[in-house]
């Protein structure tokens, strides 16, 4: 935020003392304090619920009456093969999403940046942003058509002779992670370019001119001007994404998963959903969710720390 010359005009109030100043700003308080209370209730309030992770909780007994069981819920979790599997699936799908998502959106942003015809560029952007606004329910519905055993993908692959028999994409576990990766790229690639294209427009055009005069071809200009120009954006997004490694998504796995692929489709969130809501084992599910949140915070702080060591832009 830039400091402005005018800000001193309203500022001398500090001398009056905190409470007096606060009283003078009661209209600002009317506009902000209700939202503060709202957020404390809806975003911070549920954190009391983490106590249930250490209890044998039932809604009937409530938080106050439920007996404490120490780390027993966590011990139970880590003795469950399906929980360990859900950690594996979560990490696998987030890494695939992170790599596919980052590579594809940088590639598309670079290609769009090279387009000189404004109308064509705009058209490509309009079309590729669209899937971002479709709900996951709709996207999974479409995926069921596209990847059906007699659907277009199988027809295409059979047509060019890569496969002989149609592949049962949605019913064989080994495809599931990659399908999620591909579908997420389809949905988000255009949208994710916005931030990189914004970074590219901030690159000084004279850098390109200088590179051209020095004899750099198109690919060298991309390599030595465009990509270094988006490096800080890339780093910030990378830190954010590392902080979100435990969030592989929930909707797509829940909607597209089925009994045949569940060993590969269940993420931690689906596990929480299954035990917490369907089986009403609140304590186990809360413990699983809490484990996820704590790991996420550690990952975020860790990535931020490393970025600081490398002297890159940091998030917090």
């Amino acid at each position, binding site marked *: 935020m830039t400091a402005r010359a005018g800000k001193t005009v309203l500022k001398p109030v500090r001398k009056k003392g905190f409470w007096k100043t606060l009283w003078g700003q009661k209209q600002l308080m009317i506009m902000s304090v209700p939202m503060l209370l709202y957020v404390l209730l809806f975003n911070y309030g549920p954190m009391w619920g983490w106590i249930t992770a250490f209890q044998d909780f039932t809604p009937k007994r409530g938080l106050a009456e439920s007996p404490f069981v120490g780390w027993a819920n966590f011990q139970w979790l880590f003795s469950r093969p399906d929980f360990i599997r859900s950690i594996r699936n979560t990490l696998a799908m987030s890494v695939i999403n992170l790599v596919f998502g980052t590579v594809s959106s940088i590639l598309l942003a670079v290609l769009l940046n090279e387009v000189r015809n404004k109308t064509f560029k705009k058209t490509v952007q309009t079309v590729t942003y669209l899937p971002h*606004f479709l709900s996951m329910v709709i996207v999974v519905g479409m995926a069921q058509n596209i990847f059906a055993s007699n659907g277009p993908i199988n027809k295409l692959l059979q047509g060019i002779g890569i496969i002989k028999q149609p592949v049962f994409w949605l019913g064989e576990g080994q495809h599931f992670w990659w399908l999620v990766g591909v579908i997420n790229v389809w949905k988000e690639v255009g949208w994710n370019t916005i*931030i990189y294209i914004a970074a590219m427009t901030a690159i000084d055009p004279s850098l390109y001119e200088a590179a051209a005069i020095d004899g750099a071809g198109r690919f060298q200009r991309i390599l030595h001007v465009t990509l270094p120009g988006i490096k800080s954006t890339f780093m910030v997004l990378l830190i954010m994404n590392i902080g979100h490694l435990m969030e592989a998504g929930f909707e797509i796995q829940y909607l597209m998963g*089925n009994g045949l692929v569940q060993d590969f489709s269940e993420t931690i969130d689906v596990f929480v959903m299954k035990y917490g809501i369907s089986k009403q084992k609140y304590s186990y599910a809360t413990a699983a969710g809490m484990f996820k949140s704590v790991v996420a915070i550690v990952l975020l702080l860790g990535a931020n720390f490393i970025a600081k060591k490398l002297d890159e832009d940091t998030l917090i």
Partner: protein
Amino acid sequence: MTTATVKNKNRIKRDAAFPVINTIFLVLLMFVTVYPVINTVAISFNDGTDALRGGIGLWPRVFSTKAYDSLLGDKEIYQAFWISASKTVLLTVLNLLFTSMLSFALSRKEYVLRGFITTVMVLTMYVNAGLIPNYLLITQTLNLGKSYWVYIIPCLFSCFNMIVIRTYICGLPEALVESARIDGAGDIRAFFQIILPLCLPVLATVALFVAVGSWNSWFDTYLYNGSKKNLYTLQYLLKMKLATTQASANAAKSTADALASTTQTTPITIRCAITVISALPIMIVYPFLQKYFVTGMALGSVKG
């Protein structure tokens, strides 16, 4: 010829070919992006039994509006449409009102609670209590389950949107508020009469985000209103159809024959028809709001 000139010539050739290859690639990408959408529309207008054979591309093979007839002949879809539309509009208005007021307060540099409240808000982007504690808060403590208000009340704040609006307000000339204050207007009046009208472009962006999020959500219905048929949303209806078609897809051929003998609509065409109906409102408003959301994303990325 020396190797250097050969290299140079190759490079010039490559550079000349690049725009052509690039254009072809981007056209292909657009095709891949719209293909599933058009394919779904084509299937929804196809005869149900015929659709089970698969292989429908961009155009229906045996044209039929049976899927739409049977859907639109059922009262539940109108009810669901009404719930979806009304909650989307109501939430968008309330969310924008509260978020923009808060953003304005947090954009005032002289506000003594600014740092504290901003920190509390920003932390919500990184710390989340998780599904079960939220579920227990809403169903047990606040008793909001099985009600329309569960679509509205828990969704009134998003920190990202607050940052977008605040960044925009901070970019407006400071003198605007100062002159209003000198003329004797309080902060609330300065906000509603001077700042809010100037914020329309950014409010359009945020409105789009909030409205799309609300329109597209199905999980809240599933969690809180799964037993209240009159509170079902369009997305939730679609989600239920998804589950039934998946079950029948697993059973594959035998189901196809069974269905073919009884009815001319199949879960597949019905599912595609609901998909089209629930995606239509977004497809319609999308081109008009396009220019706004790009600016909004750029604003959010400054500090987000």
